[in-house]
């Protein structure tokens, strides 16, 4: 029984971390550019598929680094070419655009790599069970935890301490002033977008090693990522982080007692937050709200 | 009892105190002007009065009633009408249509899916009244967004008048206007004050307008009241002169 509980909690932690990774990328794009990226889950899939293509040439470790970079670069190019013209317009247009992109990317994945799953095997060195009693503690899962923790920490350090990070944060608060200070807001937005997509691509590589690749793999993570942002508070990345962890853990705990209710509990949390503290846990009144 | 009374209103944004314990009492039928260098907190003060956001401290009383925590919409219904520094109008609609919306809301029709022919006629008459009062009858069917600055401001004032306000609050009504338009608008304000007896509070940078129109002037500097009195008193006040000479004028 204890093993079962721990198994579910551990799974919940892993899923929660994926929620966090997705939600952070989504939130960064949302906060700075006001764009809801419907295609975020599809960039995740691309990240996994590119890794699949790269592994024969540069190995898993190489793919882990290069694939997200490629996906991030694609995101950056797309932002520069087709998303940027939409910033001055009604936000409905950028939503429709990412919507359309989602369809296109998903179809490309299906056409190129087939709709059946593809395996993405991590190297044997990390894919070992660690404990006989706790069979679910595989090396790979610990590896995922490690990478995500390191990435999130690096992201927050970057945003807090680097000049570029500072500009991004200032931009989410007051883009006009940032622009008036002579900072190139367009480059800032492009870079920010690319960074958000990079995170999605990374999540894709990691997820691929866990559950295999298929064109829909990002779909199940997209809505929880939205909810993580809503629960944590729009405009606050730390809030998003906390939101992701909360819903991941809540889903996990629910699985132990009510297996069918694990998705519902996330929705329930969202409704409760909306009723009790509508701007989210750490959200600021008036910031995008 | 004053019509509008603000008691020691304060507004702080974090550690920045934009308005610091400013008091003002406006009597019915007065025209009060608020002047001061840029950043003096004049618009923030207006925002407090009109309910844009709540004060950090202090009270706002309208005709003896405490409206300190009433929201903006409620204050409009209680008789506070305002214009903004950057004209807030419906640019894609004609003057008549702009006025129509204002009149219909003021007449209580805002949720009506249908109005009778008689009611519609009353609305039309009221619109014509407002257009005449603001001198816009000839331009009634022009898109407001295409009109001159002065005419846009006149349209905005017409909308405010539609609300049958007890007090008109005008935030820099002649902002960005040339000689001709400034004259046009200040003449309109003078008419509203002298002939129609409206109580008006205005923020202004143009001293000729202020000294021409105001019964009393209040000077704000860095959120604090610097001086208050008749135009003659203010003109002679050395502290006011320093404040204006020492800072760039807007």
């Amino acid at each position, binding site marked *: 029984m204890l093993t079962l509980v721990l198994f579910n909690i551990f799974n919940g932690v892993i899923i929660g971390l994926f929620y966090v990774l997705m939600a952070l990328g989504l939130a960064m794009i949302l906060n700075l550019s006001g764009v809801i990226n419907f295609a975020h889950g599809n960039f995740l899939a691309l990240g996994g598929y590119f890794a699949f293509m790269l592994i024969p040439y540069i190995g898993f470790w190489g793919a882990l680094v290069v694939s997200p970079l490629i996906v991030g670069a694609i995101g950056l190019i797309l932002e520069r070419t087709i998303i940027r013209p939409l910033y001055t317009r009604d936000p409905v247009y950028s939503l429709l655009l990412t919507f359309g992109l989602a369809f296109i990317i998903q179809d490309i994945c299906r056409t190129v790599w087939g709709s059946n799953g593809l395996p993405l095997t991590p190297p044997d060195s990390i894919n070992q069970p660690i404990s006989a009693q706790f069979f679910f503690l595989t090396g790979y899962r610990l590896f995922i935890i490690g990478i995500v923790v390191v990435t999130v920490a690096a992201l927050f350090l970057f945003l807090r301490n680097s000049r570029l990070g500072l500009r991004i944060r200032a931009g989410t608060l007051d883009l006009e002033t940032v622009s008036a200070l002579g900072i190139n807001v367009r480059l800032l937005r492009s870079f920010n977008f690319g960074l958000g997509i990079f995170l999605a691509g990374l999540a894709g590589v990691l997820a691929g090693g866990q559950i295999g690749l298929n064109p829909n793999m990002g779909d199940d993570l997209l809505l929880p990522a939205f909810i993580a942002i809503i629960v944590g508070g729009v405009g606050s990345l730390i809030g998003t982080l906390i939101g992701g962890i909360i819903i991941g853990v809540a889903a996990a705990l629910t699985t132990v007692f009510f297996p069918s209710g694990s998705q519902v509990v996330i929705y329930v949390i969202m409704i409760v937050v*909306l009723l009790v503290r509508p701007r989210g846990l750490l959200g600021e009144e008036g910031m995008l709200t | 009892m004053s019509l509008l009374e603000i008691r020691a209103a304060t507004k702080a944004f974090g550690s920045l105190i934009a308005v610091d314990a400013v008091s003002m009492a406006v009597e019915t039928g007065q025209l009060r002007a608020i002047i001061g260098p840029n950043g003096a907190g004049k618009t923030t003060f207006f925002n407090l009065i009109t309910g844009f956001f709540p004060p950090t401290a202090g009270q706002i009383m309208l005709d003896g009633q405490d409206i300190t925590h009433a929201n903006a919409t409620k204050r409009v219904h209680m008789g506070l009408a305002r214009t903004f520094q950057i004209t807030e109008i419906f640019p894609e609609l004609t003057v008549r249509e702009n006025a129509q919306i204002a009149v219909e809301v*003021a007449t209580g029709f805002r949720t009506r899916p249908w109005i009778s022919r008689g009611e519609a006629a009353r609305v039309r008459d009221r619109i014509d009244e407002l257009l005449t009062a603001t001198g816009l009858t000839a331009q009634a069917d022009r898109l407001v967004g295409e009109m001159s600055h002065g005419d846009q401001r006149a349209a905005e004032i017409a909308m405010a008048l539609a609300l049958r306000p007890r007090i008109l609050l005008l935030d820099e009504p002649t902002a960005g206007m040339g000689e001709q338009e400034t004259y046009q608008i200040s003449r309109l304000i003078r008419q509203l004050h002298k002939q129609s007896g409206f109580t008006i509070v205005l923020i202004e940078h143009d001293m000729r307008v202020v000294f021409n129109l105001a019964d009393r002037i209040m000077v704000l500097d860095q959120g604090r009241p610097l001086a208050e009195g008749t135009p003659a008193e203010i003109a002679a006040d050395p502290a006011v002169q320093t404040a204006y000479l020492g800072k760039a004028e807007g």
Partner: protein
Amino acid sequence: MSSTTIGETFERRGSYRDKLALLLIWVVLLTVPLWLPAIGGYTSLAARILVFGLAAMGLNFLLGFTGVMSFGHAAYFGLGAYGCGLMLLYVTNSTLLAILAGILLGTVGGALFGALIVRRKGVYFAMLTIAFGEICYYIAYSWNSFTGGYDGLRGFQRQPIHLGPLVIDIQNNQTVFYFFVLAVFAVCVGIMALLLRSPFGRTLIAIRENQRRARFLGIPVERHIWMSFTISTFFASVAGALYALINNFADPTTLNYIISGDLVIMAVMGGMRSFWGPLIGAAIFVALQDYISSATVNWMSFVGLIFVIVVLFFPRGVLGYLRRIPL
């Protein structure tokens, strides 16, 4: 009645051309059974276009006329469909009652959820509407025993309508059913037009044109947005109820975000700022999607491309360009 919402709402002098266009639209709609089969169409395709057109026009009440974005209107469409289907399956033989049940379910859902989120603005509001849509989708495909899960709700049939001695056989006669749908559509469109030309409709346009000015004229903006939201969910749920009757089938895909996005693109494609735009957009989109999905396996890419191309090159939509409505 001109097709620019401003022109109509404010009774700007309707030109001869506008009245002619209106006549043309109704002539086309009334004669569908005559000409549609000739060009390779079928009457239930026309019914589908009307239904999606109604849903898109309902959404546009909120999106185009009030200026508020919702990307989750499929939820109310689907609630209407399921409400109608469940009613026919478990409770009654009356088609009219079933439709009413669907409308009730969708509209109450909309009113409640709308009240919850109305204070949020912009993209955050849109995100919340998406989330609600997905919640409804989840309930529909999980609650197997009640809703039929992934396979959808089957086993009900639209029943002939008995009005005293008159029997309207919408069950077996496709043409009669089409005219029934058209009649409901006409009533709804009439209500919509009435609302838009009223003082209430003008307050919505005011909110779209300048929310701050609307607020400072004494319009309780959030309350009016809620009303607009609820009205739009009403029309979406009427459309959903009719949709369930077209194929005697309701399934979870009517609820998910894809349909929500489709409704938005229909409104934009036809022209967000015009009254009839969404119907035209629905006609184009439904017909296109029908054709593409039978022509190629990569229909998803093409649909996605439609979205991208419309956004980048035809943002004002068909009627927007024809009437030179500003963005």
